[in-house]
């Protein structure tokens, strides 16, 4: 049981990754009321793009970390403008079906271009090194993931609650017609939100590459965990996503240590308990 700090750190690293994925998802859900099934597929696309950029083109991890979110930002903006906006009139069902169909297509395209097998993304330099912490030798990269998540969470919270842009965003959610009347281009704002959320999933994909390597099932694997984060934390709540990510990260990590055979079910058990006790999630508002 002397490994406990190591498993705790593992849990933190996975929590960081989970937060990066679910932050974009919960942002889009909270702002636009769209549950984006394509989110995990975009995360997968980001990871595979980073493979091409790091392993085949430049060899620079930092390049991928900057370029992939930018590419996905553009893709996200195009999807919102030309596809999602069109089905808006059919209500939630249309939006769900559209994003679901897009996820299907993106996954198939990725399998087509990059092949149906895992690809390892190797990093070099400072991030690939190790550090001694609590008397254990620990990879720097895992700590880097957690710091990235803290940074992204902090920046998002600052923008949402401390800037003018944040006020406009929250106003658009609250009463989009009134905000529109006051001279804010709400459709443009929503396009930006969707594009930013997609870019965030790409960022998470780049981060995930060296940790988990890229493989065709990666989208589905993270999608379920991200969904559980949203259910447990509360729909559309950033604070809830932080707490739930930390909780599920540790649950996954210690689940493997303590009861390896049942570790898969633990996360669902947590979700079922939350559903029974507080169906709106830990930090969610009552529907």
């Amino acid at each position, binding site marked *: 049981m002397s490994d406990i700090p190591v498993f705790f750190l593992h849990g933190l690293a996975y929590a960081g990754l989970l937060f990066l994925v679910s932050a974009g998802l919960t942002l889009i*859900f909270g702002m636009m009321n769209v549950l984006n099934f394509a989110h995990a597929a975009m995360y997968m696309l980001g990871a595979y793009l980073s493979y091409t950029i790091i392993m085949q083109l430049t060899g620079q991890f930092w390049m991928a970390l900057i370029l992939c979110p930018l590419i996905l930002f553009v893709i996200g903006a195009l999807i919102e403008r030309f596809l999602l906006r069109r089905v808006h009139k059919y209500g939630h069902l249309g939006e769900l079906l559209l994003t679901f169909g*897009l996820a299907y297509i993106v996954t*198939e395209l990725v399998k*087509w271009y990059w092949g149906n097998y895992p690809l390892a993304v190797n990093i070099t330099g400072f991030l690939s090194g190790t550090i001694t912490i609590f008397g254990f030798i620990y990879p720097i990269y895992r700590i880097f993931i957690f710091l990235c998540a803290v940074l992204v969470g902090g920046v998002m919270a600052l923008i949402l609650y401390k800037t003018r842009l944040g006020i406009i965003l929250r106003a658009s959610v609250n009463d989009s017609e009134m905000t529109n009347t006051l001279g804010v281009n709400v459709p443009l704002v929503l396009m930006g939100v969707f594009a930013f959320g997609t870019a965030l999933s790409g960022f998470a994909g780049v981060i995930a590459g060296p940790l988990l390597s890229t493989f065709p099932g990666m989208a589905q694997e993270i999608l379920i965990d991200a969904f559980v984060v949203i259910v447990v934390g509360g729909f559309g709540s950033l604070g809830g996503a932080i707490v739930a990510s930390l909780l599920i990260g540790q649950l996954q990590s210690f689940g493997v240590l303590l009861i390896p055979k049942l570790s*898969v079910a633990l996360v669902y058990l947590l979700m*079922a308990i939350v*559903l029974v006790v507080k169906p709106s999630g830990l930090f969610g508002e009552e529907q």
Partner: protein
Amino acid sequence: MKQKIMPLITIIALFLLGIFMPVILKQYHLNMLTEIIIFALFAVSYNLLLGYAGLLSFGHAMFFGLSAFVTAIAIIHIPGLSLWNVILIGVGAAVIVGFIIGGLLLRHKGSYFALLTLAFNALFYAIATKWHSVTGGDDGLSITRPGLDLGFTSIPLDSLTNFYYLTLVIMGAAIVFCWYFTHTAMGKTVLLMRENEERMKFLGFNTNISRLILFTFTGALAGLAGVFYTLHFQFVSISAISPDMTTAVLLMVFVGGTKKFWGPLLGVFVYIILQNYLSNITDRWPLVIGVIFVLMVLYVPGGLSDVIMNVWQRFFEKKDNNGGKSATAEEV
């Protein structure tokens, strides 16, 4: 009067057509037809949720796959189990699970419902994959079909033709029962709940209970389809319970159209034939189907049945002047 007789004639005509199929079709196509009939029930049960109740479930395969696995496990571990008991156990498992999960979900609708059903489907998929000693994991389970015991005589089901007739009768009866269900008071309640739940609550309906009943009922039907899936292929693998199976049934239903009862039947037919055809000419057929799906969501959200109804109205219903319009609005 005409409206009441038409569906009956259609049902009888389809059954008669089905009876003569083994004479006309070769073994390969009869195999495909059996598969189509099994998936027809799966799709119809799914459409009761999607089309009638307006609930988008991403977890329908958990019932289908659960019953498929329970069937295989029961046949392997309980020697001498009769076919009727196999069906009973398989469907029973789906009913119990449907009731428990439905109880957890009944307060949720829309996006929440979609997300939660997907999560539960993933749980079942994970269990089927990891519990290797019982489910066979990636290898799957092979079985041999038990014979059909009718009390006075027993019919071996080794031949495809015999099994085809059994499938036709039981699946057909279940589909007809679904159609009947949509015309009962319960069926109408579900429909009205989709249109205006608040008003139904004011009228004194407990909409949560209605949703739970519907969820369990459709789960049981999907389970029945799952039992026959295992019996038909005499094999079950984790693909039966994977979220991809839910995707397949969603595509089938959506291609056919959710607005009409017969939409999913058409969808299953088109989907399975298209899949067989496309997989012969290209390895990328899921991509083609995905693109078709997105285009349909954008431009033909009513599915093929909607297109057919529009064409039908344009060419045939003009002559029918005395209230022809109300006939189309009255159905779902």
